[in-house]
C-alpha cells in the first residue's frame, strides 16, 4: 500500500468538503463521498462505501456529542430505534456484498434522486419547521417507526450513508417528534448504525486504511470548521446547490453503470 501526497491531499480535501457540507446543511457527507470516490478517484464502489461509512461515523460522533451536551437528542427513543437500524444495517451490508458494482451504483443514484428531491422540498418549505422548539411530545406509532428505522438501516448498510434523509422525516412526520429533536436524535443514531455496517465491510476487507484515514481526518476538520463558521440555518441556495449536485451525481452514476460499468 502506498499513499502519494496527491492522494492524501485529494482525500483530505474531499473529507473536508463532505464534513463541512454535512455540518452546514445537516445533510450527509455520505451522499457525496461515495460518488466522488467512485467516479473521480476510480475506487471500487464497495471500498468507497466502506470509506463513506467511516466518515459518517466521524461526522455523527462529533455532532452527536454536541447535541447530547445541549440535551437535544432523545437518547431513549434513539436507542429503541437503534435495535431496528443496527439489524437493518448488518442486513444491508451483507446484501451489498452480493450485489454487483453496477447494481449498487444504480441504487445509489436512486437514493441521490430521493435525497435531492427532499432537499428541494425542504428548502421550499422554509423556516417554519426550524422554529418548532422544545415542546413536550410523545413519540407515537413506534411499530411503524421501528419498521422505517429498519429500512433506513438497510439503506445505510448497503449504500454507506447516514440515513438521516430517511430517519428525520420518519421521526418528525410519522412519529410526531419535534424537528430539532428528530435531527439531533437521528445524528445520535447514525454512529452506531454505521459502525454495525462498517465491521461487516471490515470483515470483507473493504475498509482500506490509507483510503479511509485521510478522508475521515478531513471530515473531522471540515465538520469542526463548519460548526464554527456555522449559520445554523443553511441558506436556501446552498441547499438547492446541494440538490443540484446530488442530481448530477445520480445521472453520472447511472451513466457509468450502463456504459462500461465500473470494472477496473
Amino acid at each position: 500500500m502506498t499513499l502519494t501526497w496527491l492522494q492524501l491531499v485529494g482525500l483530505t480535501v474531499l473529507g473536508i468538503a463532505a464534513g463541512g457540507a454535512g455540518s452546514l446543511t445537516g445533510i450527509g457527507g455520505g451522499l457525496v463521498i461515495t460518488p466522488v470516490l467512485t467516479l473521480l478517484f476510480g475506487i471500487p464502489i464497495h471500498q468507497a462505501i466502506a470509506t463513506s461509512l467511516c466518515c459518517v461515523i466521524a461526522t455523527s460522533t462529533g455532532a452527536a456529542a454536541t447535541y447530547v451536551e445541549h440535551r437535544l437528542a432523545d437518547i431513549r427513543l434513539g436507542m429503541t430505534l437503534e435495535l431496528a437500524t443496527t439489524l437493518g444495517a448488518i442486513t444491508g451490508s451483507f446484501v451489498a456484498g452480493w450485489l454487483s458494482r453496477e447494481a449498487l451504483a444504480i441504487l445509489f443514484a436512486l437514493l441521490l434522486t430521493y435525497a435531492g428531491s427532499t432537499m428541494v422540498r425542504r428548502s421550499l418549505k422554509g423556516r417554519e419547521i426550524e422554529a418548532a422548539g422544545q415542546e413536550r411530545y410523545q413519540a407515537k406509532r413506534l411499530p411503524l417507526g421501528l419498521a422505517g428505522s429498519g429500512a433506513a438501516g438497510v439503506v445505510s448498510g448497503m449504500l454507506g450513508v447516514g440515513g438521516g434523509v430517511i430517519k428525520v422525516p420518519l421521526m418528525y412526520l410519522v412519529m410526531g417528534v419535534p424537528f430539532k429533536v428528530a435531527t439531533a436524535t437521528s445524528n445520535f443514531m447514525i454512529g452506531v448504525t454505521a459502525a454495525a455496517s462498517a465491521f461487516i465491510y471490515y470483515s470483507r476487507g473493504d475498509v482500506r486504511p490509507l483510503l479511509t484515514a485521510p478522508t475521515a481526518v478531513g471530515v473531522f476538520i471540515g465538520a469542526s470548521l463548519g460548526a464554527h463558521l456555522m449559520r445554523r440555518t443553511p441558506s436556501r441556495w446552498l441547499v438547492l446547490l446541494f440538490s443540484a449536485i446530488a442530481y448530477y451525481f445520480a445521472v453520472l452514476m447511472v451513466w457509468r453503470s450502463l456504459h462500461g460499468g465500473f470494472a477496473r
Partner: protein
Amino acid sequence: MVEFSDEKAQDAISAVLRYGSLLSTAVMAIGLALVLWRGQVMPRSGALSLGNLLYSALRLDPAGITEVGILLLLLTPVFRVVVAAVSFGLERDVKYLVISLGVFAVVLTSIIFAIH
C-alpha cells in the same frame, strides 16, 4: 422530566463521543504522518486480530497505527452504547437497560464477523 442522574448519563455519553472522536482522529493522523514519512508501507499480512494489530502498533508500523485509529473510530459508538447501558442500569431503568444491551448484542455480532 430529566432526573439528576439522567444529566450525568448524558454528560458521560457526550464525553465518550467527544473524546472518542478526538482520540481516533489523532491516532489516524499520526499513522498517516508516519506513512508519509516512511514512504512505501507493507500491506498488512495475516488476519485481523487484536494481537497482530497491537503488535504492529507497538512497532510503530504506520499502517498498523492508522488501522488502530480507524478501529477506535468504529468502536466509539459502541462504547457509547455501553455507557448508556451502564447509566440506565445505575438509574434502575430496566426497560432501557435491556434495550441498550440488545443494541450492544447486535453490534457485537457484527464485530465478531470482523474478527472471526
